[in-house]
């Protein structure tokens, strides 16, 4: 019974410690959080766009896209990628 009580109390102590940790940590500002989140999202969007550009290139080389179609697709994808990069630049500039 003693062992069981010790295990239960230890589990409870660990649980309270883990759950309450954010309240004990130094709080970052909400704006800083939003900026960090925005950067993370833009980086994910940028990586996804890179993959799309690679996909289109592979489609060209594997004979699925004509040069003309590839030029149109690739152009618009790169324009979108650059747009994301500009947004990333802007977000990085205001990062505290």
């Amino acid at each position, binding site marked *: 019974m003693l062992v*069981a009580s010790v*295990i*239960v109390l230890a*589990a*409870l102590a*660990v*649980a309270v410690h*883990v*759950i*309450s*940790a*954010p*309240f004990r940590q130094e*709080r970052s500002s*909400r704006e800083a*959080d*939003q900026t*960090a*989140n925005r950067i*993370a*999202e833009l*980086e*994910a969007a940028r*990586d*996804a766009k*890179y*993959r*799309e*550009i*690679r*996909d*289109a*290139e*592979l*489609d060209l*080389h*594997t*004979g*699925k*896209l*004509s040069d003309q*179609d590839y030029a149109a*697709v690739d*152009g*618009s*994808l*790169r*324009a*979108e*990628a*650059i747009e994301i*990069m500009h947004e*990333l*630049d802007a977000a*990085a500039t205001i990062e505290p």
Partner: protein
Amino acid sequence: MAVVGRTLLIFGLISAIYGLCASLYGARAGGHVWVDSGRRAMYVLAGMAVGAFVILDVAFVRSDFSYNIVASGSSTTTPAFYRAAAIWSTQQGSLLLWVMLISCWSSLALFLTRRRVREIVPYAQGVLFTLCTFFIGLNVFFANPFATSPNPPSEGAGLDPLLRHTTMMIHPPMLYSGYTLMTIPFAFAVGALISGRLSAEWIAVTRRFALAAWLCLGIGILLGARWSYTELGWGGYWAWDPVENAALMPWLCVTAFIHSIMIQEKRGMLKVWNASLVLASGTLAIIGTFLVRSGILSSIHAFVSDPTLNFSFVALIGVMVIGSVVLVMWRRESLRTEARLDSLISREAVFLFQNLVLVALTAVVFWITFFPLISEAITGTQVSVGAPAFRPFVVPLALMVVLLSGIGPIIAWRRVTVAKLRRSFVFPVAATLVAFVVLVFVTRAAHVFALLMFSAGTFVVSAVVQEFYRGIRARQAMTSEPPPVALARLVRRNRRRYGGYIVHAGVAVALIGVAASTSFQHSRTATIGPGQSVTSDGYRFTYVRPTASATAEKISLGAEIAVTSGSQRVTTLHTSYGLYASQDPTQPIGRFFNGASTESRVGLKSGPFQDIWTVINPNITPLDGLVSRGDAVLGKALNDALREPPALRTRALSFFYQARDIAIRGIAQRFVTHPWKATFLIIVSPLVTWLWMGAIIAALGGLIALWPLPPPRRRLPPRSSPATPDGTLVDEPARARELVK
């Protein structure tokens, strides 16, 4: 330790309720500290659930019969290997497994998204905590796995013999992993709909979980099919059983989802469709759990049922369905598509059509599976439907899915010229035509749908081979790598694409196996004695000799069957029929025969092109006289032993058990020494192995697609980098090349 286990469950429930409240408060008040605290409550819940599960599993392994579910679901004679897995053969244990898996997967998902999609996460957390609260609440209030008995029995009832199969160690956890993983995209979709963040972000963070759910459900389904084929003794692997269908429906739905999210990611299209698909998949996962646990539809796969849980499950499913419809309707304006189809001859058009077929397939399976309940609600009588009700709808739809899975890989996104289209189709179509002509001659066009499935499968495999060939050639042109290196690097750098292609090829191979084994199967039942033979599909099956073995737990009556083709020996099959003893102490011998649990061991010779399968169903009526006589004599001996004074009773009982075991062995040996005719089910099926091989190929492809990509270059471009109007990175030629390699 039962008290500790129960307390951990209660702590887990408190954590889940706290996490739900903290997440929703954090979402409403914008307090990320509360949301973070809620996320950590999920880690705590996972820890509690794992702790409780380990305590219970140790009780099973140690055969601690003070736990009620250990006494009812295990025994000291159950092999340790199966005792460790017996936990999920019980209602309470399987619900605890659900809680453990959902809390662990949720913890992983919330950890990976702790710095992403911050607007969506609080609501997603809320949904996940709601589901966790529901299931752990069932464990705490209705199905307590830690209930104990003050007077535990000295021996347990034992694990159901049908569950003593290797696949049962993996099959239930795989299915439950699939169901629980499915709740992650569901929760994030709900979070996206509530928060209004409806771009492809929530898809990007949960795509891998959807793929993992697809993989786990698929492996679970196949392991269940394998168990059915080798354990149940009816000769098939798929019976369109409600529990089988319960796993198939979310698998089909999530298959459609995995394809259609690509269209949203690339084109911003199909937002309503994707949200609806993922909400349907999540709800179907809960419906699947409900079907398995409730027993509302009779199933060969359902081993426990508890009608007291029905109301809770129906209420949860009702909330999920109504909530999903309301959310999609509420956000219908924001879910408007950002683009339109450029061309009907494009990959997105093929995906869209394939999605429609998959959803139609899900709807057909759903309707026919639940038809008995619908008919009962209307007419008061539950009508039973079987495989014939499914085939007219499922076969043509499956054929279309296979064909589309071949077209998708060889067609480009957005648009494609007729010349390119012709070039892409020449090889697969030519290979298909050759296969079709050959197969018409080989099969004499006996089964049209099977012939069409073989042709469609050939089309898919040849399309995938062509894609690999072209990919390797393209890579070689750019890098001059030798073919094996080019292949490895091609797959490594394009895991989603080439993993997906491998899945398509695997599914095609598996469905060729299904079509062949169902259409060209030879099956017959024969009642023969030792030395007698029957023929099937050109093979002679000779009942060489009976076999028998007996232990205190099980009597096994079997046969050795020699299979020959002409004068050539093909194989020798061993099949047996196991009779497991019940706990009835009044029938020392009859407890094996009167309503005892039984199992079949099939005799199977698997080959790449043909399976030879047989199972014995011995007639045990000739043993009735011996059994009755044994029960009378041994029953009296037991009573005499129990009347002995305590000092002599142990010895007397020991003699009784020895005499009983000798009698059991003697009765079993009677089957060998005085053999009589037994009934055999004999099946010769072509290409069954292709089903298992196709499944392994598809699982391999799924793993490749699931495996994380190498980390992309994260360096930001120089701030001064200008772009030309056409979007070319003029001052970064090296980087631009890097993008496309």
